[in-house]
């Protein structure tokens, strides 16, 4: 699938860098997969590739000092958007590394005394896979279910914490359904029980207000490319007071307080910092604009089409996400019918397992409905016109595919598709 951010276009135009003369490109509605780098971010990064190319760890000359000043400024910008101290920000290669470092780092440090951690079944694969890996090292992992709306049940969380629990890792915002977990409440529970609270905030930073102190968050993973920054950069917030101890994954020159060795990529750090600064300034107004677009998309679809279902809580949700099941129409077939829209599907018809989305299954969405879901993700460069085109295309494609769906036909005839004995294949 084509993203809409060709760098050349990004630099040529600041009003519509998607390129007005490139109509062949599909309308990008996959902002949870990645976001285009904001041209303002690119502008801030460029000098650090060429004139200001110094190694930020070189202490002997101005090249190094300039780079170091830029990196430290970026660190302040990242800290600011989550109300942290800049000394608590560790740069990494992205949220996957941050999640690995937080989870493996904390558990490996503590597992001799406390070898239990808790996470959710709907976490991103990099959290779940890190937890699986730790299980092989002897760590006990509890995978908590979620409620039908996608949110954790706080009573279930409380009950799962034992005196062996070292870490609770619960994502801030889900990447498929956009639901926002009750971070402040989770943080309070964890603090009372003396358990570290890590949150994967890749989909949350710049979308919702975050305050690591008010929310009692001890570790937070941040991604650059989900917040209109560059790919290949992220950060991990690590609380200083009370201090969170963790083992490093990458060893070497001892950069980033020994937690993440390796020369910092100055341009990428600058890009992440600038992306955070822009998001912090524009978040409130942007959220309002996106909520309007979201409501317009939802109304357009549900007014025209019966039997469409929003997956995940609609209130506790970032405004730039809608995940909808279109009953009786398979998601991948639907995507082919809306080929000028770049969206993603909860169906997994192409994968070897052919299992639909594990996140939707965890909400109790039945397999046949999970196969019919699409994720619409929109953001900073989505226009009202994009949304109107999306509604028009989706409605006509769903109508066409329903008219040729045997399941829709049965539903119209009043046949319960569950009453049929299907041959599983």
């Amino acid at each position, binding site marked *: 699938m084509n993203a809409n951010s060709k760098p050349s276009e990004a630099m040529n135009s600041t009003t519509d860098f998607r390129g007005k003369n490139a109509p062949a490109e599909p309308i990008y509605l996959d902002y949870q997969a990645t976001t285009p780098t904001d041209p303002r971010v690119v502008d801030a990064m460029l000098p650090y590739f060429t004139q200001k190319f110094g190694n930020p760890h070189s202490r002997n000359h101005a090249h190094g000092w300039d780079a170091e000043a830029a990196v430290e400024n970026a660190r302040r910008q990242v800290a600011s958007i989550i109300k942290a101290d800049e000394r608590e920000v560790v740069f990494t290669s992205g949220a996957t590394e941050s999640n690995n470092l937080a989870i493996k780092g904390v558990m490996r440090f503590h597992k001799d005394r406390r070898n239990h951690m808790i996470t959710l079944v709907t976490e991103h694969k990099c959290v779940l896979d890190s937890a699986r890996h730790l299980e092989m090292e002897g760590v006990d992992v509890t995978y908590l279910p979620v409620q039908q709306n996608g949110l954790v049940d706080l009573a279930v969380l409380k009950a799962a914490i034992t005196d062996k629990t070292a870490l609770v890792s619960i994502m801030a915002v889900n990447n498929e359904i956009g639901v926002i977990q009750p971070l402040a409440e989770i943080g309070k529970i964890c603090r009372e029980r003396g358990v570290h609270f890590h949150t994967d905030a890749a989909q949350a930073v710049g979308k919702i207000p975050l305050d690591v102190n008010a929310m009692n968050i001890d570790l937070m993973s941040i991604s650059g490319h989900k917040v209109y920054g560059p790919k290949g950069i992220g950060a991990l917030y690590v609380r200083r007071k009370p201090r969170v101890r963790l083992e490093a994954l990458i060893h070497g020159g001892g950069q980033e307080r020994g937690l993440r060795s390796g020369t910092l990529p100055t341009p990428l750090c600058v890009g992440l910092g600038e992306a955070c600064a822009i998001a912090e300034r524009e978040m409130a107004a942007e959220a309002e604009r996106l909520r309007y677009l979201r409501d317009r998309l939802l109304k357009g679809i549900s007014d025209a089409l019966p039997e469409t279902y929003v997956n995940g809580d609609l209130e506790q949700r970032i405004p730039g996400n809608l995940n909808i099941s279109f009953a009786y129409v398979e998601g991948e077939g639907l995507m082919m019918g809306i080929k000028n829209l770049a969206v993603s599907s909860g169906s997994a018809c*192409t994968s070897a397992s052919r299992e639909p989305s594990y996140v939707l299954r965890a909400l109790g969405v039945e397999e*046949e409905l999970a196969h019919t879901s699409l994720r619409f993700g929109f953001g900073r460069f989505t226009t009202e016109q994009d949304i109107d085109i999306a509604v028009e295309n989706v409605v006509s494609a769903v109508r066409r595919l329903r*008219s040729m769906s045997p399941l*829709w036909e049965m539903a119209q005839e009043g046949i319960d598709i569950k009453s049929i004995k*299907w041959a599983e294949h």
Partner: protein
Amino acid sequence: MTYSAKLIDHYENPRNVGALDKGDPTVGTGLVGAPACGDVMKLQIKVGRDGVIEDAKFKTFGCGSAIASSSLATEWIKGKSIDEAETIKNTDIAQQLSLPPVKIHCSVLAEDAIKAAIRDYREKNGQAAAPAAEAAAR
């Protein structure tokens, strides 16, 4: 995923979408697949006295490859005798549409749908299935 022009043509302009009267004794109906697996095909044939398939219709819930496979299947069986139609192999369909490996199951389902429709027609008309066809359907 990139698809062949033929596949896209069958997806965008599917042949023989629709339904025939299930109650008609000259109509055989095959319903294969499962909603939980993400694809269901309904394929129907109308058979003349000479055993030739006069008409075929389909409806499919599934991905583009599943829709194209069933569309192509109806196109191929129209005008063939049921014995001939029964010899159509999933590999023929897969090859014609250049299905990628992860989509081969769509062509298998289309073959199953043809066989299921023929079986239904034969059962309705008191004909035993040809032994070879029975074995192939397994």
